[in-house]
């Protein structure tokens, strides 16, 4: 059973890695964020599988933290897109194109 669970974890990790191609291709920042979201859900599954395969309960806690942080990452991304301009520009605001990081 341990071998099977390790294999499944490796497979899911492979699909997540494949999905990261989307980060290279884009074209939007939102598309790249989708790949990060995939990394969140897929990472949780990989950690759960590894946790059961290895018998280490603490890996389950890691999965819980990853689920939480992945959600926060996406919400932080969206609040950044919705309010791209900072309330008080400290430096020259024309130095950077607004709300576009690419």
């Amino acid at each position, binding site marked *: 059973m341990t071998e099977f669970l390790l294999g499944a974890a490796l497979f899911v990790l492979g699909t997540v890695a494949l999905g990261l191609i*989307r980060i290279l291709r884009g074209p*939007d920042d939102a598309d790249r964020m*989708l790949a990060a979201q995939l990394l969140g*859900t*897929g990472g949780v599954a990989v950690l759960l599988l590894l946790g*059961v395969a290895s018998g280490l*309960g603490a890996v389950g806690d890691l999965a819980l933290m990853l689920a939480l942080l992945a*959600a926060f990452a996406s919400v932080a*991304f*969206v609040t950044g897109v919705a309010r791209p301009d900072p309330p008080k520009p400290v430096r020259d605001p024309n130095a950077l194109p607004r709300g576009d990081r690419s």
Partner: protein
Amino acid sequence: MSLALSLFTIVCVSLGAVFFLAGTLGLLRFPDTLTRLHALTKADNLGLGLVVLGLLPQVDWPLGALKLIAVWLLALLAGATVGQVLGSAVRPPPVSGAGESTP
């Protein structure tokens, strides 16, 4: 009995892995951001659900199982919220009267 449980785990986890593959394929193949978001949220949530279901017989009752279910519920809630929030961020300017419908 133990064989049946092992079989259950293998079937559920394998199915879950297939849905993860589907999510990745959708993410790479679907034509625009919103359709990719559909693929990602729906396929991956089901994939994670199946992996959790498959792992349930392999952990100790009730603490380990409850924790697995808690992880799944949190991921489900996060997926549903993120889907909506990302969707509203990439939505193009308001469509007026497009696809108007009354239930």
